[in-house]
């Protein structure tokens, strides 16, 4: 799976462009919706920090700092990355703005295959979760990781998941994860 993503990464720049779409036209890819349907990362955000009025004037900046990735099918756009950016943008906009204002997004020329799509999405989420640390409670980190990287085998945990191993090949034990997050591994 690692070479798959490496190959995709190489050709990525030829297959993307910056474009402008209405937020109302974007919805999440149905396959990716399954990942977050039981573990919506929006729920873990601190409620006070969402929808602050100051960011209303910085929509374009927010959209470019962590861009949304979409692909187009018929007249609709489907999101594969940048879920939290999408959320921040939407919560700062009025209802009328949603279908009136254009937002910069990265458009993929081709719909990525199932596996690639998942990897793009998961690596985006884990980056937010583990590297940018939008939540700090170990229990919540564990909850999301378990939901996003499910395993058929009950005994093994999310660390054994193939997609996890592709995104974080260096983290094989909870201890390593804990040391990266700089916490104890008790609740992970």
């Amino acid at each position, binding site marked *: 799976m690692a070479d798959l993503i490496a190959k995709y990464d190489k050709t990525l720049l030829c297959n993307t462009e910056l474009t402008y779409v209405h937020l109302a036209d974007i919805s999440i890819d149905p396959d990716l*919706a399954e990942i977050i349907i*039981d573990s919506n990362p929006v729920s873990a955000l601190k409620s006070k920090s969402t929808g602050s009025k100051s960011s209303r004037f910085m929509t374009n900046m927010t959209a470019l700092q962590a861009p949304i990735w979409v692909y187009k099918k018929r007249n609709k756009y489907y999101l594969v990355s940048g879920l939290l950016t999408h959320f921040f943008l939407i919560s700062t906009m009025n209802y009328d703005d949603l279908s009136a204002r254009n937002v910069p997004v990265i458009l993929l020329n081709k719909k990525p295959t199932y596996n690639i799509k998942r990897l793009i999405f998961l690596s985006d989420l884990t980056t937010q979760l583990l590297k940018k640390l939008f939540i700090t409670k170990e229990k919540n980190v564990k*909850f999301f990781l378990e939901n996003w990287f499910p395993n058929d085998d009950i005994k093994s945990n999310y660390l054994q998941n193939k997609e996890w191993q592709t995104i974080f090949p260096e983290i094989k034990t909870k201890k390593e994860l804990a040391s990266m997050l700089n916490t104890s591994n008790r609740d992970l």
Partner: protein
Amino acid sequence: MRERISRQDLFDEKLNFNDEDFEKFYDFLVLIECPKSFRALNEVLSNLLEISQQYPHFFETVFLITKKDLVNLVSTISDSNISKKDDFLNHHFERGWCQTHVIYAVLAQYKMFTSTSSRAVFTLRFLEHFFCNIDTIFNIEREEEVTRAFRNLNRNKTFIVPDFFDNSIDEIVDYFDSLRKDDQLEGSIRNQLRQLYNFFNLSWKNRTKKKSSSRTVLRQRFNNKQLERVIGADDNVFTSILKKSIDNTQSGIEKTEAFPVISFIKTESKIDKKPKHEIAAVKQIKDKSSQKKQIANVSNSIQRAHNSTSLNKNILQAHDLSFLLFQLQKKKNYQKQIGVVETRVVCQFIIASLYFSKSIEDISSFKILKTHSEDGEGFVFIDSTWHFKSVFVDNLTVAEYSSSSELLEISDYSLIQIPEFVSSIMALDPTKIGLLFKKISKSRYRDSCTTFLSNLSDTHGVRVSLKSIQYFNNNFNEANQLIDPVIFDFAFNHITYKTRASRHYTQYSFSEMSSSIFYFWQTIIENISSLGFMSNIDVKSIKEIDYQSMCDCDHVGSRFLPSAGFFQKRNMSLQSKLSEYNKLEVQSSFDMLIQYHNDYVIYVSLMLLATTGYRAVYNPLPSLSMRLSRYKMIMISDKDDIDFTHARIIPLADSLNIQIKNYQSHLDKLSNLLHLLHPEAAFHVKKQTEELNHSLSVKPSDSVHWFSEIKNSKNHPGVLFYFSKNNYGTHIRNVHPSWLSEVDNTDYPLNATRHYLRTFLAKHKLSPELIAFTMGHWSTGEAPLGRYSTFEFQEACSIVSPIIQKMSEDLNLTPIRSLLI
């Protein structure tokens, strides 16, 4: 439920694809709704090949794969195990696929389409439009209807499909629009054409009633031969009696609520009647302005009548009453004969007419009953107190009876106590069972009574007539608003047009009615003596009698009133259901979230219904801006029509105020959580919470349009909505009565809370005007929002709100914060 091919199913077939092709074909098979068994796929693929060969480019835009891809797919499948399956070659598809696999069914039947030359283009145009608007179509569940129309129209030999290759969608719409109006076509074809027109136009009109009913329709509902007098009005104004109730179930109102507007009739006055030899001028008959003036005159006189004051000439004044009562008690005159009747009997007639609001004819058949359980109406001697028993008949049809065990039982008759001053004049004797008066012609009794009254009027210079005596209770109460007029209905079986709606909602116990009527008379007597007239009459307080143990059941009135305990239990169970949810689970899991939202909405809706007395309608709270928190008022709209006659402002209890505020923050959070997973719902919620800002910037005409669109709407989503799952996914639907009673699992009528509210307010001795204001019961001239009205809303709300608040506390309706906050 639609059973679809899954990625794993296709993977298991081990087809010779690379990853990219696999994705492409999987998407394609999902698009054409290929079933798991691959049944009839052979047929479908060969039809698609035919189409793609004719129009390769068009095919690509519709199905998003090239002709080459399709050939590639077909050849791969024919090499694989799939082609060896029996199901694959089977031409017939399974039962029910026309409902569950609509696209697949269209493609499988393609060979049967009659016009071989243009069927490919028409199919492609149809599917192109279908796929582009797939969300809309599935959301309103029209997919089966449009595909059925499409299939049947194409299979019809008499219909020739034109070539739509160069036509835009608008032109196709126009084409179907002109065809569907063609009278020469068969009905079934025209029906299909209409459905296709709606499909290409993407507009399905909801059948909403927009017009108020015409005069003729209105008149049909009334029996114009049976007239009833208008309370407090002149002699020549009447209202006609209702023949049948209107069928208004379409606009979301239950049958027991659906009364048509009262019609008023003015008969020609006897005095003003022109002599026969005088021919009316043509100009006068046809003059529009004079006709208008006549109608306005009727309305004016009704308005005046319904706003009568205590000095109205129709009401017996203190001095009239004082002389009348004095004469009635003058025992030394009793032996005198007036006509063939003794004065004693005349006095009995008149006091009965005054107290029981009955006509002389009715009184002549009064009797004394042995026990209260005996059949018929009359006087009963219970516990050394005289009672009047009346049999109260409600005109419910059999279907309207509810068998629910939660409803309180009611009695078929009512018993009310008679004060001593009445029973002594009536000279009731418990030993004389049977008719009270001798059987002589009723007109003789009437003549004697009239003579007695005219003698009285002559000697004392007062104006007393039989009519003013009979209608005294209603007229006086109308002017002074002393007690709930419904009590007179129940107590004396005296049904008036004015209480037709409020009567339906109220329940009274025997002792409550007795004490209210005693209070009514005490006030009158006090009034007389305060003006310096004689009063040797003393209305004592009622005697405490345990009717419950004596007659099994001591309540009369509404059949649809559950006990307070029932509501308490129900609310407790709803609250405990809500408190069982886990906060993290609710916020992070989509399924839990919609489940929680549904439960939360039930609680909010039931609270709204209970504390506002909403009728059972669709979309009860059309907008969050209906709550006027600062004034403690809420605007509601039930049983409404195009003129907004029942859009009204009513008092808002504190608990409901807080609950709606909580719900508003719940919606805020909900829209955040839903944005990616259910954009449709999220946008809708966002719009709702921003509506107030929005509504300030629209024109009045637009807002009228907006409001008539959303109120009681079935399809236009409102503030209170729930998630329902259908074949295609999760959709939002407005809260409506049948859903509420389904999820609440109850068999009592949903507007039972309205019955409870009316009864609760009446028990708290609220003035009848305030009760009517809260319930929205009014007739001409009484509407608090009328142009002539001097009704003080703030004052009224500050009186009523605490009582409703007390009720909601009694019923355990405490506001609950959402777990999402």
